[in-house]
Structures are given as C-alpha cells and as structure tokens.
C-alpha cells in the first residue's frame, strides 16, 4: 500500500487528460469544506442529555475554532511532507484523519466527554483539513501552468461548496436518526465519517502528477515573464526569510479577518440592522446567499487573476472592500436591504477570492518547487483570522451595546474597523515586489522548476 501511495506511482502516462485532475482535487475539498457547516451540530449538541448538564453553545463553538487552528498548524508543519510525498499520500492521510475525527467525536458524544469530541473533530479532523486543503494545490499548478489561478480556484471553490452540501446533509441525517431519546448526532457523525472517507478516497486514488518537465500541448512559457512572476524557485525555509512571505501573510490574514467576522454574525446582523423587517428565515436566506458568493468568488476571482495579475486582484479586493465597508452603515440608515445584501455579497465573493488566489500569488513570487509547503505555512494566517475576526465583531458589538448604543447602530464602528483593516491589507499588498535573487534556489534543475 505504501508504494501505491508513493509519488512515483502517481505519475501520469503520456497523453493523460489533465482535466481528470480537478475532480480529484474537488472530491477532497468538497469533503473538508464540511468544516464551515459544523454549526449545524450546535443546537442538537446542546440537547444531548436534555438536562442542565448539557454543553453550552460557547463550549461547542470550540470545535470550529480548534479545527481551524489545527488546519493552519498541520498545513504549516506537514507542508513539506505533503510536497515531497505527493498528493496521493497526503489525500489518503487527510481522509484517514478527517473521517476518524468524526468517529472519535461520535465516541465523545456517546460518553458525553467534550474533550474527546474536540480531540476528534478539532485536532484529528483539523489535521485532515490542513493536509487535505494543501494536498492538490501544487499538483494543479503543475498541470495548469497556463492557468494556475483558475486551476487552484476550482479546487478551493470546492471548500466553499462543501458547506453547501454538508449543511442540508447533516440536518437530514440528524432528522432521520432522531428518536424520542436521541438527537441522532452520534449516528450522523458515524455516517458522515464513512461517507467522507469514501469520497476523499476517490480523490486520492484518481489524482495524478505530471511527469517532470511536462507542458500542455502547444503551450510555451512566455519568453519575457510578466512583472511579478518569477521563473526562479525558492526553498520553503528561504521563503520565510523573504519580506514577501510576511506581506502576503498580512494580505491573507486581513482579508480573511474582515470576511470571517461578518460571516459568523451575518444572521443576527441583518436582523438587528433592519429590525422588524427581516425574519429569521430571511436571515437564513441571507447567510445562504453569502455562502454562494463565497464559493463562486473563489473560482471567479482566481480565474480573473490569471488575466489581470495577482497583485491587481488584491488591490481590487482591498480598495473595493474599504468602500463597501464604509458604505454598509449608510445602507442601514437609508433602510435599503437590497443594497446591504449586494454589498455583503460582493465582500464575501472577495473573501473567497482571497483564499483561492493566494496559491497562484505564492507561485508567482516563489516558483512551483515548494509552493505547497509555503502555502501551508501561510495558512497560519487563516487560523489567526479565524479567531480574531469573530472576536472583533462580537466584542466591539457587545462593548457598544453595553455603553448604550442601539442594536441597529452597534455594527457601524465594527464596519469602520473592518475598513481600516482592509486599508492596512492594501498597504501590505502595495509593498509586494519581486523576491530578491539572493533567496533563489541555486541548483534548481529544470525538472524541479516544473
């Protein structure tokens, strides 16, 4: 089995159709995207015993935070292992971690021990998220050197789409397994663990890497590389000595902080900004719309970046983001729900676009040699943002309400702070320049470069 998982056994034969690779990547990303839908377990998990001994929403919220933290940590720690071992081994391991995370969590629910649930879904599942997230990235960029943004955007779009599948699936499963004495959480976790294992294995067993030096038929690399697109290679450890790594870390962190804070509070926010005009069901529709834009934005913006350049794409994210965040309180004051919804839909498309465009940006800066590993280390920015974003929105809102500000107005300052964060992101992106030649890998063989 170990040899079957080796990178050497995944090299595609001549004439292999490269469009067989994106579905393999999508199978993994559609599975691990379930993380965004973990909140569907929240309410049932507060009623497991039907007594005051049940877990609180705050305690269960730990699941998502620990999972996202371990996503970043595992991607950073194992990025090089993923890069060296190839996508099949990484996808296989990710499937084992992610599905066994569900199994361990189901056991934790059964014995009603929160730490086991967190250990299962949060730690083990989180490692599955990290490994699964980065596993197909560099492979896709090697298959699509002509359209790296589109290729990675397609896979990372799957992460956004995964939540759209998992939310109704987990609700339906819990409804099916629910009895007078059980919420159906254990059975649902076991079934989802098994389903995702099979689905991710389809990805692991079909993924292939191109042979060294492979190029799409008829495609020749541009004789004069575009500005800010390197033809050199940078080692992952050396990349961390380059200023550009930290600027891009800031770019990702600030873009995600601004988006994730809103995403986590979207439902109460629209209801409180338009009191009496938006029902809870309509607020659910608003959240659904944001999820759709989050998903579509990943493919749209990453593909667009192939034409307009990565730096320009982020310039649009940050500049337009600042304008939209500054305009949102006004849409509330004039009572325009359509403008409010439209503003946040565009913001969330750029949130998704930020995730999807960053691998190609890293490839432009540091080459393809260790791009997966560098991407893994950069994902720690997501972990930080995953904690900082919701905290900022919740804390600032509560602080204002405690000081007598009306609920409808309590988001105004938050929006201005988000705009300020995006302005800092704009500055980080503005200062991104080509990586100094002293960081380039000296003995890069042509095969490694491909």
């Amino acid at each position, binding site marked *: 089995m170990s040899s079957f998982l080796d990178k050497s056994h995944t090299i595609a034969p001549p004439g292999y159709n490269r469009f*067989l690779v994106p579905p*393999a990547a999508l199978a993994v990303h559609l599975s691990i995207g379930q993380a965004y839908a973990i909140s569907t377990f929240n309410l049932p998990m507060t009623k497991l015993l039907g007594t005051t001994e049940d877990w609180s929403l705050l305690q269960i919220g730990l699941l998502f935070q620990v999972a996202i933290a371990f996503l970043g940590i595992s991607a950073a720690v194992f990025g090089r292992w993923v890069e060296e071992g190839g996508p099949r081994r990484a996808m296989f391991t990710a499937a084992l971690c992610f599905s066994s995370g569900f199994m361990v969590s189901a056991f934790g629910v059964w014995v009603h021990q929160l730490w086991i649930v967190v250990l299962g879904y949060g730690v083990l599942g989180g490692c599955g998220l990290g490994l699964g997230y980065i596993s197909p990235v560099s492979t896709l960029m090697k298959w699509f050197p002509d359209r790296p943004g589109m290729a990675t955007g397609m896979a990372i779009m799957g992460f956004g789409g995964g939540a759209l599948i998992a939310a*109704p699936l987990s609700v339906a499963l819990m409804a099916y397994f629910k009895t007078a004495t059980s919420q159906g959480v254990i059975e649902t976790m076991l079934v989802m663990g098994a389903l995702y294992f099979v689905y991710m294995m389809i990805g692991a067993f079909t993924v292939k890497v191109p042979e060294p030096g492979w190029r799409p038929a008829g495609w020749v690399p541009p004789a004069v590389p575009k500005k800010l697109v390197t033809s050199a290679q940078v080692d992952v450890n050396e990349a961390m000595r380059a200023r550009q790594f930290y600027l891009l870390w800031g770019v990702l962190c600030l873009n995600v902080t601004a988006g994730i804070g809103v995403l986590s509070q979207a439902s109460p926010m629209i209801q409180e900004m338009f009191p009496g005009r938006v029902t809870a069901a309509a607020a659910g*529709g608003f959240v659904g719309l944001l999820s*759709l834009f989050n998903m579509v934005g990943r493919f749209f913006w990453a593909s667009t970046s192939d034409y307009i350049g990565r730096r320009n794409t982020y310039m649009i994210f940050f500049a337009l983001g600042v304008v939209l965040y500054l305009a949102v309180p006004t849409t509330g004051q004039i009572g325009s729900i359509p403008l409010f919804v439209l503003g946040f839909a565009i913001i969330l498309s750029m949130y998704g676009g930020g995730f999807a465009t960053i691998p190609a940006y890293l490839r432009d800066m540091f080459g393809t040699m260790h791009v997966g590993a560098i991407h893994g280390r950069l994902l720690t920015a997501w972990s930080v943002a995953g904690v900082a974003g919701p905290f900022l929105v919740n804390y600032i809102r509560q602080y204002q309400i405690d000081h007598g500000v009306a609920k409808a107005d309590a988001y105004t300052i938050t929006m201005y702070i988000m705009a300020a964060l995006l302005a800092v992101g704009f500055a980080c992106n503005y200062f991104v320049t080509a990586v100094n030649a002293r960081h380039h890998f000296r003995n890069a063989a042509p095969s490694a470069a491909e």
Partner: protein
Amino acid sequence: MTPKMIALWLIVGIPLAFGIEQTLEKVATLFY
C-alpha cells in the same frame, strides 16, 4: 470526453448541484 472523465465530473458535480439547489431554496426566503 472519456467515460472516466464523465463519471468523475458527475461524482463531484451531482453533490455540488444538490448543495447549490438546497442553498437557493434558502436564498429564496429573502425575496418573500
């Protein structure tokens, strides 16, 4: 388009289409 290609794209496309359809049903509540 080989059978393998069609099968693989259907395997990822059908669940995604299901998810999008379910989400669009929720989104519709915004307009009523």
